[in-house]
């Protein structure tokens, strides 16, 4: 199935475009999607595909599915559906 990955800034630069269609298997989770992106885009994307560590308070990547933060869903276990809008960016916090 296909999901649309939108991004800004540094992540957009890594993915190559502000909007990218990604082909993933049925019932894929956000973790699966990130693994697929790591596979397609290479090593530069790896730091963002990792799980949050104990030390850092939050993940190095912020992900929203259909406008909802995955922290409010099932985190990286959130299951995706055909046509989902997945937004990814660095977790800046200011303003």
């Amino acid at each position: 199935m296909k999901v649309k990955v939108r991004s800004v800034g540094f992540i957009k630069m890594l993915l190559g475009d502000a909007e990218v269609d990604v082909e993933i298997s049925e019932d894929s989770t956000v973790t699966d999607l990130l693994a697929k992106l790591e596979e397609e885009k290479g090593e530069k994307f790896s730091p963002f595909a990792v799980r949050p560590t104990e030390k850092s308070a939050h993940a190095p990547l912020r992900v929203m599915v259909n406008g909802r933060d995955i922290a409010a869903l099932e985190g990286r276990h959130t299951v995706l559906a055909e046509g989902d809008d997945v937004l990814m960016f660095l977790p800046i916090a200011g303003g």
Partner: protein
Amino acid sequence: MYRGGYIGKVLRVNLTDKTFEEEALPVEVAQDFIGGSGFTVKYLMDEVPADCDPLGPENKLIFAPGPFTGTTIPCASRMAINAKSPATGAMGVATTGGHFPVEMKRAGYDVIIIEGRAEQPTYLWIKNGEVKFRSAKEIWGLPSTDTQLVIKDELHDQNVRISCIGPAGEKLSRMACIVNERRVAGRKGLGAVMGSKNLKAVALRGDQQIQIADKEKYDAARKRMRDGMRESPVLYPEFSRYGTSTTLDVTQAMGIYPANNWTGTGVFTPAEKIGGYAIESRGQGKTACAGCPVGCSQYRLAQDAPYTGLFTEGPEYETLYSFGGVVGVDNPDAIIAADRISDELGLDTMSAGVTIAFAMELFERGILTLEDTGGLDLHFGNHEAMITLLNMIGERQGLGDILADGTKVAAEKIGKGSEKYAMHIKGLELPAYDVRGAKAHGLSLATAFTGADHNKGYAFQEIFGIPIPYPVDRFAIEGKGELTKWNQDARTALADSPTMCVFLMDMAVAGFMFQNTADLMEATTGLTYTTEEVHQVGERINNVARVFNVLAGFTRADDDLPERLKTEPIPDGPSKGQLISQADLDFMLDEYYEVRGWTSEGVPTRNKLEELRLGYLADQLGLQ
């Protein structure tokens, strides 16, 4: 008396009598209120009648950095300034950074209280325990940068640090700010309070050293904080390069970047032209507050005519909204120009921009005509008209005179149903988040003790997805009362009082933010706190402010949102359809008052006040 951090001294200056005196900072005040915002709230409560005229001589202007300010703790050059706000009539705490906060500690004071009213335009020169009252007749009328340059020349000291007002404060605009270097204590009309006292500037200088109570604990706590800063995936990599400007890209992507006076959220989406990544092309280096290794302040230079050559420190995210989305403008050079012009006039960019947006909507609806605007075509997006009107506001000319006190007052003067389009809470204009799509953030604006202030209880969980103390769903209304109390108390206790830059709270020490403050307080000052007691300091400060506001006449009815947010859903984008109905707001307010321990009308109870060692305020409220 103090083992470190604090100087232990309060300076009291009387402008009417041209006198000054020093007094001791009571230890109980230090323990209970920590510093910064806490000190200014405490002193204002105790010394200024809540029903006084904000522009009269009874109001006081109170400056306070914190015990961390002036030490080697990073990112602590911040201070609070407070007075009864001319914009709202409520407590008016605003904060600023730069270099003045550190210099104020070097000049030897934890708190400066300015009272009365000078007969003639005056500026204060504070150095080595001496206060001089100098004539400001020659600099009255000058814009803020030149004011500071001229004072430094006059005093033969280029290292003096200055807080000043521009023409807007002199002309008592309720949107006037206080400027130090190129930074501002932007909101609540504190510049007008200074103007009403005929006080053009406060200049100070000193070489007081700050002591540290426990060097070993200090080094350990400081190292832990520095490690957190280094490990952050965003603080140095992104934030030091862009400041807050990339927040525009984030809020637009979430569908909560307000546009066209809050009618066009999700419809007008200008991030490709004025987002943080877009305006990087205008970057001309960066600068930092005193003692900050991050340096998030970007210098930017306008490129295209008619704004070519205008230079500013900024614009930050709020200004990229107030002279961008909310007025329908997507010209980055116009925003740079407006940012610089606002700083020179001494106007709050946020209130100025939202007030211009209000005028634009009225113009589009035919409520204001070309005759009213003096020929200005105030359609959304007309950035040249925006700049012209901004200058008119700063100098109170033509329509600018009607708009200079903000949307609430302008709506009263214009009438014709215009108050429906005035986007303020308690008289303070709304900040850059369409809170219909972030409910706790909306509740914090409705209940903040200063009006629609994004800096009194920022819901970073909703806006930035940070799962501290727990992850939240920004569209839900349940649990938001509890979250808002947490955010308000945390912000006040951890950032605005010790003082510390809030961006570290969100991006560097988020996982241990309360422990960080407790450890640094003990190490620096010798005063000890459990993390619960740190929470309680924030709660105490918010309760004192609430009591002041109750005495000033505020009720539950004032903890409100503009009509538009309650009745019109977000028109488009990822947050399409969201709004906060009156029922939603009442639900959240009920929960908020309950967790705060206040009555259902939002009044602190005697029980709660005594729990916070504020029993004397229960007496003042006349509570049983």
